[in-house]
């Protein structure tokens, strides 16, 4: 299997043995290891990427894979309802993968921000229909995942004011539109790296 220019030429079906699981080759997404061999678990094309001195073997079809939220994954959610103790959200995407069916999660009052956790007023942090970025703390109970927005990179990304105008962040706790200023727990989203010509 060549890694330079011959990538993506091998089409495989689930259960197809790809290569030996040596110290150089490790199983990436869409594959599993069994009996010291790497097998494919998706139908797609085999792509080998180099990570340091390791070669990661993964199977993809160009489309997004199927992932569910797990502890530590960054998720994009829409706020459904806000209570004084918690906010219920609907998880839309896990990382870059959009979920086929949204699942439910909660952000508790203690997990909204890092400082002064007792004095949090939920209605000044989130409003229904906001889009937030959060990190999954745990699988939670049968209904909801446990999420947290404590941190500079987590919080409200997109929101609309009460009259429907889009809000633009102006500080860590405020967003404004052309008619009013509203309070939110704002996420500091880093802009994508742009190459300087």
């Amino acid at each position, binding site marked *: 299997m060549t890694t330079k220019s011959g990538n993506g030429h091998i089409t495989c079906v689930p*259960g197809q043995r790809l290569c030996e699981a040596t110290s150089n080759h490790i199983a990436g997404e869409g594959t599993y290891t069994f009996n010291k061999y790497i097998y494919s678990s998706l139908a797609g094309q085999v792509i080998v990427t180099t990570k340091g001195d390791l070669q990661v073997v993964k199977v993809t079809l160009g489309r997004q*894979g199927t992932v*569910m939220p797990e502890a530590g994954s960054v998720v994009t959610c829409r706020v459904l309802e806000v209570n004084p103790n918690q906010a219920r959200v609907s998880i839309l995407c896990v990382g870059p993968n959009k979920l086929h*069916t949204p699942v439910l999660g909660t952000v508790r009052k203690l997990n909204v921000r890092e400082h002064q956790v007792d004095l949090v007023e939920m209605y000044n942090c989130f409003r229904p229909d906001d889009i937030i970025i959060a990190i999954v703390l745990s699988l939670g109970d049968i209904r909801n995942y446990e999420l947290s927005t404590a941190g500079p990179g987590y919080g409200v990304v997109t929101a609309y004011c009460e009259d429907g105008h889009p809000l633009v962040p102006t500080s860590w706790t405020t967003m404004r539109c052309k008619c009013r200023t509203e309070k939110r727990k704002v996420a500091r989203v880093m802009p994508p790296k742009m190459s300087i010509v």
Partner: protein
Amino acid sequence: MRCSSSSISYFATNVPYTVDRTHESWALVLVPLILMSSILIRMASRDLRRIIGPEKCMPYTVFQEKVEMSFLGHDGMRRDGRSAIDPRQVFMSVGIISQAKGSSYLEVGNTKVCCGVYGPKDIQRGSDFKMTCQVFCEVKMAPFSCIVRKNPQPDKRVKEMSRQIKEALESVIVLEKFPKSQIDVFITVIEDDGGALSACITAAGLALCQANIDVYDFIIGASV
């Protein structure tokens, strides 16, 4: 008293009653009561969602003579001209249900099966918390799939098929990858010309592949 409406006369065919001209006033009270009771008894057993043909009608094949046929004829071939080891022609297609995560359509000879896979999604109410994925499988036979019209309600054979397919899929899907979720597999048998269970399993395997759900291997069904 003459019943002018034809629908009332249809409901009243099995209710034996005679109406005397002299007791018309009693009839005015009694007849509606009897009619209502017969209607209620009928409604309990009648399927109101579908247009069923007239009662006591059966397909003509029930009255045909039954001919005893063995598996292989005199020339050692099956009834449709195949030898004992020849498989039937197969047609497969994926992506036919746009709302489903993955779907497939499979034809084995005349047996036609269609499958849709949804998930992984939130577990439905009433189920326990499990760190592995749960598979929910339902097979439905269309009423026109067999020669004699089949009741849309699942019977024992269909429930057994659903259970077997669920167990087969549970052994193939990488369940640890989707904690606290469930995968729904819905299979519809459009025409049953034999080998429906193996066709359903193959269709489910195809739909799982198209749905990009991690599986240990490509599952197919065959009858030996």
